[in-house]
């Protein structure tokens, strides 16, 4: 019984991934590439060397964190797709605070706090005005984009290199786990965050209340749980995770340790996280694995491009198909049926 509840989602994700990879292979063939060669290059690049693995893990870092934002809210019955905007604010907070106090903890804390803070308006609009979070978070993402853009360009611009903001001071940077790679302590932090999320959701009273109101708001209310409070908490916890993503990205990723103009270096993680979360079945531990899987795709794409000449967009195609396939219910049952025959 218990085993099946664990195995089924796992298998469904694997089936979805397989479908994505297979359709990807078809597309590759049709566009004149050898799928075997391409995928070999992908795997080789992502896992074939220590640098490849480091690249994979470092690519997984921010999307694990933004996936947690989505997962925590989804467990509370909320579709918070505001991770994108929250990442920007997390990064901004880390840059400002570490330049005041050159300590990594301060930066992380700042990212967490501002991330949580920025997710509050959407939470309040949801709770008190009934504004659907999908709508509000999309709007807030744009507002965040322009607002942070202003700070990056104006008050926080780097006087020595105007193409980015002031840097995180050396003392506050997250140390690298492997020299000559981008893999830093940020990865460990992301894993910890996932484990803590798991712990919060399944081993604390708060998590119990979040999940209860996610499954059944009326029952939660009956049980003395304030669903409004639960919703606000889920936004806060979620915001905290993507705030952390922003902070660790600027504090732990060489070479720039700053926000680039146009936010180019912290752009897009929020939306990638949604896919990661879905493939990880909105489960923090699942997210670690699906995050690493997406990391493999990303790191491998570099190699696939260099070695096999396959355009980068191919990977996005594969990702999209995987997510659509995840949505098809009963995929695993179907496979089982076919196999039994």
């Amino acid at each position, binding site marked *: 019984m218990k085993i099946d509840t664990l195995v089924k989602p796992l298998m469904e994700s694997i089936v979805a991934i397989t*479908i994505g990879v297979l*359709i990807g292979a*078809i*597309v590759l063939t*049709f*566009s*004149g590439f050898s799928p075997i060669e391409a995928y070999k290059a992908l795997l080789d*690049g992502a896992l074939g060397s220590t*640098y490849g693995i480091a*690249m994979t893990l*470092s*690519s997984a870092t921010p999307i694990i964190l933004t996936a947690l934002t989505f997962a925590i809210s989804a467990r509370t019955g909320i579709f918070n797709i505001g991770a994108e905007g929250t990442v920007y604010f997390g990064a901004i907070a880390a840059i400002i605070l570490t330049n005041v106090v050159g300590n990594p903890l301060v930066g992380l804390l700042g990212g967490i706090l501002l991330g949580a803070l920025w997710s509050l308006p959407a939470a309040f609009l949801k709770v008190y005005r009934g504004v659907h979070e999908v709508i509000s978070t999309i709007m807030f993402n744009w507002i965040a984009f*322009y607002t942070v*853009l202003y700070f990056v*360009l*104006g008050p926080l*611009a780097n*006087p020595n*290199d*105007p*193409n*980015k903001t002031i840097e995180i001071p050396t003392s506050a940077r997250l140390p690298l786990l492997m020299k*000559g790679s*981008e893999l830093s302590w940020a990865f460990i932090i992301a894993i910890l965050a996932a484990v803590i999320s798991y712990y919060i959701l399944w081993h604390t009273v708060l998590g119990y209340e979040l999940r209860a109101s996610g499954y059944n708001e009326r029952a939660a209310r009956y049980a003395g749980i304030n669903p409004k409070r639960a919703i606000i908490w889920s936004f806060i916890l979620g915001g905290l995770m993507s705030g952390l993503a922003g902070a660790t*990205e600027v504090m732990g*990723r*060489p*070479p*720039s340790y700053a926000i*680039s*103009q*146009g936010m*180019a*270096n912290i*752009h*897009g993680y929020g939306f990638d996280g949604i896919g990661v979360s879905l493939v990880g079945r909105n489960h923090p531990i699942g997210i670690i694995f699906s995050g690493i899987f997406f990391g493999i795709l*990303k*790191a491998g*794409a*570099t*190699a696939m*491009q*260099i070695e096999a000449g396959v*355009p*980068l967009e191919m*990977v*996005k*195609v594969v990702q999209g*198909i995987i997510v*659509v*396939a995840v949505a*098809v219910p*009963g*995929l695993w049952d*179907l496979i089982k*049926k*076919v196999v039994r025959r």
Partner: protein
Amino acid sequence: MKKSMFALFLIGVLAFSVVASGCIGGEKETETKTEYAGKIAIVYDVGGRGDLSFNDMAYLGASKAAKDFNLELKEVQSKQESDYLPNLRSLAKSGEYTIIIAVGFMMTDAIKQVADEFPDQKFAIIDGYVPDKPNVMSILFKENEGSALIGALAGLIAANDGKDTVGVVLGIEIPVLYKFEGGYRFGVAWAEDYYKQKEGKDVDIQILYTYTGSFTDPAKGKTAAQAQLGQGAWVIYQVAGAVGLGVFDAISEYLQSQGKEFGPPFAVGVDSAQDWIKPGVIIASMMKRVDVGVYKAVEAAVKGTFKGGIVELGLADGGVGVSTIEDIKEMLESLPEDVRAKKLEEIGVASEEELLKKIEETRKQVPDWVWDAVKELEEKIKSGEVKVPKAFNKDEIEAIRKAKDWKEMMKLAEEWESE
């Protein structure tokens, strides 16, 4: 049963939609294996190929160099900024490449880092400022000088037609764009003065500028250009990547509404010779010869004359300038035969000659003395008689925006240079 049918249907639709995009384009020609003398690699920034701008120009230079020196060219796209370092590292690690070229200032930090890690690997970076590494050649351009010529052109066209407004539409506000904006302002101010001296009339040309907040949404460019047209802009310079496509379209539509085949109002292209995109609409383009820079870097690496440090290409070095018919020809010729034919068809002309003729005619809409004046400014800048300010940050661009005339701007230029 129904379920499995549907699952199959789904997969079918998915596969169709994806495959369709791949196969409509037809077969990829199978490459013939040739023996290369070496390999070079070029890493594009997130804008990627097709920006009609420095990525495309870099490709132009690299492919030309590859052909001339019999090199295999490896192109590498970047999806996100976090790809830069891994891309560069992966290439450098292999040790196979004679030179690795990074396109775009956003790779500056990444290049610095990789250059230290792989001291034997030669790198070049376009637009990035890396002065102190022996294995990195920084290729910079004086966009301010080129933009000044555009400003002069725009200002004089407006003045000549008795108009008082010109515009510039830019992308996301990033300091790189200040060089363009500042140069443009300088040129317009210079034109005011020139016109006054020539015709004895005072003109005060207002400059509308819009930072659209996007490099990717053409709608923003179109709306911004329409807003500027609505506020009287007579020439609009676009410095906005794909957003600029909207600028061209807005002016083209405006001309159509007036029943005119040719401007004014005109648009001005940027980076590459964009004149061909909308003949009749685009009076000229500010050429930023990234291709020349890339070619030079490859040439140096191949011939062993490679030296780290800054290479700054301005008007005098042919690194920037106003597009000429030759530039357009070269641009067209760089395209593969079939693509070129398709492009011409899309533009609505039968042959290359017809296109060039139309572009020439476009240019004839502006009196010769204006072109001569632009030439005059070019010469003055080349000789150093006139200095165009180069704005690097917000304070500097503000200073230029506030400056009364071109002389004041030149003073700023001199101040900043001496710093």
